[in-house]
């Protein structure tokens, strides 16, 4: 167990193992997203209430899932970095943050676009959209804090602490926003909470969610490998690797 963790902490070992793993995740991501898109866009039946505009769910929900999961992974990586001083964890956390912010933006944008046919307006202070917006600000905070320090070690540790504080707050924020929303807007139509979806509707959703997760893993592996090259540029194995590639 400990040997494994220490091995995982070695950038060189991680660089090698991630090179072997990442093609699988890329392939899975492409296949799942393509299949899910075709199924969701063309084959799933239209919703009896919302018609075809409900097909936005197939990008909105996976993006929203990913946005939250990435923040949690970032906090877990931060915890690993703070406790065991494993640099790879911090590199991964640093690379995850912009992707998480991008996914939060996608969820917000698709939610806003979805609002036009559903609510007749681009923006509603809907519980889900509001907590997504707050999540976006949390991402901005982590990214900005990391960028503000001149020393990399301080930046890493500060971002880790903030990610952990944020992840404790996310459920609290989520529940308080839900509570606030039900208090002020009783019995409005919520876009995604619906009585049991038929299989033909949720199967493509599941495929899309899995595809987005694979995409996240693949991108994070790739960018973490780049980050290793950047931070370990003066190590011998990195120099040899660069010559090999050329």
């Amino acid at each position: 167990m400990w040997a494994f963790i220490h091995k995982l902490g070695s950038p060189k070992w991680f660089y090698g193992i991630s090179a072997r793993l990442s093609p699988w995740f890329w392939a899975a991501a492409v296949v799942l997203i393509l299949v899910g898109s075709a199924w969701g866009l063309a084959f799933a039946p239209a919703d009896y209430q919302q018609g075809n505009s409900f097909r936005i769910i197939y990008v909105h929900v996976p993006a929203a899932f990913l946005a939250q999961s990435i923040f949690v992974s970032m906090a877990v990586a931060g915890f690993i970095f703070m406790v065991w001083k494993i640099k790879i964890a911090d590199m991964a956390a640093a690379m995850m943050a912009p992707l998480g912010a991008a996914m939060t933006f996608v969820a917000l944008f698709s939610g806003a676009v979805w609002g036009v046919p559903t609510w007749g307006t681009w923006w509603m202070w809907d519980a889900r959209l509001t907590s997504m917006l707050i999540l976006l600000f949390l991402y901005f905070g982590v990214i900005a804090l990391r960028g503000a320090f001149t020393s990399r070690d301080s930046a890493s540790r500060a971002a880790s602490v903030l990610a952990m504080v944020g992840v404790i707050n996310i459920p609290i924020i989520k529940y308080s926003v839900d509570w606030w929303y039900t208090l002020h807007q009783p019995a409005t139509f919520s876009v995604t909470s619906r009585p049991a979806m038929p299989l033909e509707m949720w199967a493509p959703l599941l495929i899309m969610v899995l595809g987005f997760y694979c995409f996240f893993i693949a991108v994070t592996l790739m960018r973490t490998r780049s980050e290793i090259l950047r931070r370990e540029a003066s190590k011998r194995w990195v120099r040899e690797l660069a010559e090999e590639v050329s």
Partner: protein
Amino acid sequence: MAFDSLSAFLAMGGHGVYVWAAWGVTGLLLVGVVIHARAERRALLRDLRRRARRAQYHGASGAAAPPISHQEGRARES
């Protein structure tokens, strides 16, 4: 198949603009992320090779070369 024709598919029962806007932005962003990640990797490898050549040319060890500048303007190793 939920649609009879290609035009019906594109129209999405009158909601085409919204569906395609949401899907389009999502798709563009995913592709953009991949392109950015690839460009970043290429630039880093090119930089590493340049450093290796410079080290050979000067006959000095690469470790003495200055660290790679940060693409995203982040801090240098403390």
